[in-house]
C-alpha cells in the first residue's frame, strides 16, 4: 500500500513537487537558520570557552579574585595530583587541559641586542607541542597560523599578528619576556617568534602571545603548577549539561579542599566554574534560547501555512481522482488517511532533502564561514571576525519535525475541503475537469 501510494506521489508532479519543494525549502531554511543562530551564539560561547573560559574551569580562588593582575603567585600547585583528581571525579567525557594565564613585559631588542622597545603583553600558555592534540584543534591553531609554524623546541612563541605588526617584529626574531615568577622572583627569558597567529579576535590579535605550557612553567619557575584547568566536553553536550557535571563535582571538591594536598598554600581554594558562570554567559544564553525558539516557532507556523496551500492545491488537482475513489466505494476516512500518509511521505522526503540542502549549506557556513572582518577589526571584543554556522542535531530536530508535521497538517487541513464534498460534486468536477 505504502509503496503504491509512494509511486503515485512521485509520478504526479503537482501532487509531489510543490509540497515537496516547500518542505524542502522550509526545512533547509530552518536548518540553516538554527545553524546560523547557533553558530553565531555558540561561536561566541565556544570562542570564550576555547580561548579563555573552558566549558568547565578549575581555578584557584585567590587567582580568580585578582585575575586582572594575572597573579602567578596565586597559581595552584600540584598539577599532577590535580590531574588525577579531575580524572577521577569528573565524567570520562570531560577532557582537562592545563593553562597558564600570565602577563609580562615583552622586550624587543635591536640588532645589537640593545633594548629597542618594551610593551606589556597578555600571555597564555597551553600545550602547543603535542601534535594533533585536542587543545590545538580547539584553539584552531593550525588554521589561525598566518605564517610560521607551531612551537616544537623550547622557548618558541606564537604572537598575535597585529601585535607583531605594532612591535615591528617578524618570524625568527628573538624577544625577551620580563615578568615575575610564581614566587615573585624575576623572570627574564628569551623566546623566538616562530609563528604569527590571527584568531580573528582583536583583543587577542593585538595583545596576546602564546607559548607552550612547559616553557611557561620553565620560564616562570612554576614546576608542577598552573593557573587554570580547563575542562571540555564533546560538542554535542549543551550548556545545561555543563552545569550538571559541575554540580556533580562540587561534593568531591569540598572533600578535597577539606584535606588539601601538601603542595597547596594555606589559602588555596580551587573553584569550579562553568562557562555560564563567566563573563555573564548564563544570562545571555537564557535570552538567546527564548529568542531562538520564538523564531523557530514563527517559521514552523509559516511552513504549515504554505503547506496547507500546497495541500489544497494538490487536493484540487485530484478532485477527479477523489471522486472516482469515492465512487469505487472508498470511505472518506480512508481517503483522508491515504492523503495523510502521502503528506507524511512528502514530509519525510522533503525533510530529508531539506536536511541535505540545509545541512550542506550550514556545513559550508560552518567550515568556511563568512567574513565580517571589517566590522570587527577594531572592536577589541571577544567576537570572531568570521561568523560561522553550526550544524547541530538540535537544528535538524527543530527543522525536520515541524517540516513533517507541517506537511501532514497541511494535507489534512486541505483534505477537510474534500471531506465536505459530496461524491456527486466530485464526479461532476471530474467531468468538467
Amino acid at each position: 500500500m505504502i509503496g503504491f501510494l509512494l509511486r503515485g506521489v512521485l509520478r504526479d508532479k503537482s501532487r509531489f513537487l510543490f509540497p515537496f519543494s516547500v518542505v524542502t525549502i522550509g526545512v533547509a531554511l530552518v536548518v540553516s537558520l538554527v545553524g546560523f543562530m547557533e553558530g553565531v551564539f555558540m561561536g561566541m560561547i565556544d570562542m570564550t570557552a576555547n580561548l579563555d573560559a573552558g566549558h568547565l574551569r578549575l581555578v584557584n580562588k585567590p587567582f580568580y579574585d585578582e585575575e586582572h593582575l594575572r597573579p602567578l603567585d596565586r597559581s595552584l600547585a600540584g598539577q599532577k595530583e590535580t590531574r588525577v583528581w579531575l580524572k577521577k571525579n569528573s565524567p570520562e567525557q570531560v577532557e582537562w587541559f592545563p593553562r597558564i594565564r600570565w602577563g609580562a613585559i615583552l622586550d624587543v631588542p635591536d640588532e645589537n641586542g640593545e633594548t629597542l622597545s618594551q610593551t606589556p603583553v597578555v600571555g597564555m600558555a597551553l600545550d602547543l607541542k603535542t601534535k594533533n592534540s585536542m587543545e590545538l584543534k580547539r584553539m584552531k591553531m593550525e588554521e589561525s597560523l598566518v605564517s610560521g609554524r607551531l612551537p616544537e623546541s623550547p622557548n618558541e612563541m606564537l604572537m598575535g599578528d597585529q601585535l607583531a605588526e605594532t612591535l615591528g617584529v617578524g618570524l625568527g626574531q628573538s624577544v625577551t619576556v620580563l615578568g615575575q615568577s610564581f614566587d615573585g622572583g624575576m623572570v627574564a627569558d628569551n623566546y623566538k617568534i616562530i609563528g604569527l597567529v590571527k584568531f580573528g579576535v582583536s583583543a587577542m590579535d593585538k595583545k596576546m602571545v602564546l607559548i607552550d605550557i612547559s616553557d611557561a612553567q620553565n620560564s616562570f619557575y612554576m614546576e608542577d603548577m598552573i593557573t587554570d584547568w580547563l575542562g571540555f566536553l564533546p560538542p554535542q553536550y549543551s550548556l545545561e549539561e555543563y552545569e550538571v557535571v559541575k554540580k556533580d563535582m562540587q561534593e568531591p571538591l569540598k572533600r578535597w579542599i577539606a584535606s588539601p594536598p601538601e603542595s597547596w598554600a594555606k589559602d588555596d581554594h580551587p573553584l569550579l566554574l562553568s562557562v555560564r558562570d563567566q563573563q555573564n554567559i548564563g544570562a545571555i544564553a537564557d535570552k538567546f534560547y527564548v529568542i531562538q525558539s520564538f523564531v523557530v516557532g514563527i517559521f514552523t507556523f509559516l511552513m504549515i501555512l504554505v503547506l496547507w496551500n500546497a495541500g489544497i492545491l494538490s487536493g484540487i488537482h485530484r478532485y477527479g481522482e477523489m471522486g472516482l475513489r469515492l465512487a469505487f466505494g472508498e470511505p472518506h476516512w480512508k481517503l483522508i488517511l491515504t492523503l495523510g500518509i502521502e503528506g507524511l511521505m512528502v514530509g519525510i522526503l522533503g525533510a530529508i532533502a531539506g536536511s541535505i540542502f540545509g545541512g550542506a549549506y550550514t556545513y559550508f557556513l560552518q567550515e568556511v564561514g563568512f567574513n565580517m572582518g571589517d566590522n570587527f577589526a577594531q572592536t577589541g571584543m571577544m567576537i570572531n571576525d568570521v561568523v560561522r554556522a553550526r550544524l547541530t542535531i538540535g537544528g535538524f530536530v527543530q527543522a525536520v519535525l515541524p517540516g513533517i508535521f507541517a506537511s501532514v497538517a497541511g494535507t489534512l487541513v486541505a483534505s477537510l475541503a474534500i471531506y465536505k464534498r459530496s461524491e456527486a460534486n466530485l464526479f461532476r468536477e471530474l467531468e468538467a475537469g
Partner: protein
Amino acid sequence: MNWDIAKKNFYRQGMRAFLNVLVTALSIISLIFMLSLLNGFQAQATRNLVATDVGGGHYRVPGFDILSPTEWEDHTLKPDESLLKLSDKDKAEVLVQQGQLYPNRRLYPVQIRGVSMEQSLLSLPLDNLKKYGEQIEDVIPGVVGVKMARKAHLKKGDILTLKWRDKSGAVDARDILIVDVGDMVNPRVDDGVVWLRLDHLRSMTDRQGEVSWVAVRNYMGPIDGVEFQTVEILMADLLALLKQDRMNSKILWAILMILVCTSVFNTQILNIFKRQKEVGTLMALGMEPMRIVRIFTLEGALAAIWALVIAALLGVPFFIWFQGVGFDVSHLSEASFPIRETIYPDYQPKEIFYSLLIVVFLVVMAAWLPVKKIIRLDPTLALRGRAIT
C-alpha cells in the same frame, strides 16, 4: 472596480488569507521591533557614552591613547584659551593619570580620572565629590563605579591607599575615601577607574591647569596643540558591533520574509489555479488581461495592506507596552556595553516607513510573479479550467 473585485476575492479565502496576513503582520512587527530595539540600544549606548565620556568629541593631547596607561603621564597639557573660555556646560576638562590602589593591601592598578566639578556636559554620579573643597583635606574624596566596587571589594565609606606619581616623578600616596559608589552606566568609565575632583588630581600630580583632553559639546574647528577626536572615532568599536548586530538581525529577517513571500506566492498560485475559469470568464466579458493581473496582484497585495493594519493594531499597543517595560539587558553591562539595566526601543518613523515599504513591495512582488502569466493565458483553455495544470 479592480479594488472592489480584489477585495471580495481576498476575503473569500477566509482563514488562509487571515493567517497570511497575521504572519506578515508579525514579521512587520518583529522587524520594527528588532530595528527599534537596536536603535534603542544604539541610542542609549551612544547617549550613555556621550553623557559619561565622549560628549560631542574630545580635543585630545596628540598621542594620547587610553589603551597605553604607561604613557598617560607624558600626554597632558594646558589647553588652549579658546577651549577654556567655553562655558561649563559646553566643555569638560578631564585629566587621566595612572595610579595604584591598595584594597586589602593588594595592588590594584587603576586609572585616576579627574573631571572638573563645575562642568555639566558629562553626567556622572559625582555629587558627593562636589561637597569637598578645592583643597584636599586629610583624605582624598573619590568615587568608584558599581562594577569597580564589586571587583575591588569596595564600598562607600572605605578608606584605602592610593599611590601615584606627580609630574616630576616623585612618588606620592594618600588615603582615599570612597565617598560614593555610583552607577557609572558606562563600564568604560567604571571598570578600573577612580574618579576624583579635577582640582584635586591636578594638585596631587602638580599639573595645574593641565588636561588629557577636553570634552566639548560642539566641534570648534581645529585648535593648535590638540587634535579633535569625533564621537564616531571614540565610539568606533561600539558602532562596529552594532553594525554587526544589525546585519545579523537583517539576515534573520530576510529569511523570515522569504517565507512570508513564499506563502503569499503560493497562495497566489493556488488562487489562479482554482480560479482560471473565472479568469477565462473575465476575459470573455472583455476584461483586458493586464487588468486581470492587476486585480489578482491587488488581491495578493491586500495581504500586505491588511498586514499593515493588523501590525498597527497589534504592534502599536505592544510597542507602547514595551516602551514602558523595556528590555532587560543587565547581562550586557557586565560584558562591557555602556548600557543600563533596561533598554527601550527607539522607533524611527523614517526607518519604519522604509521597512514597511520594503515589506509591501516584497509581498506585492510575490503576489505579482505567479499571476503575471495570466497575460499569456489562452482564454478558451482557461474557460475549461485547462490553461494551468
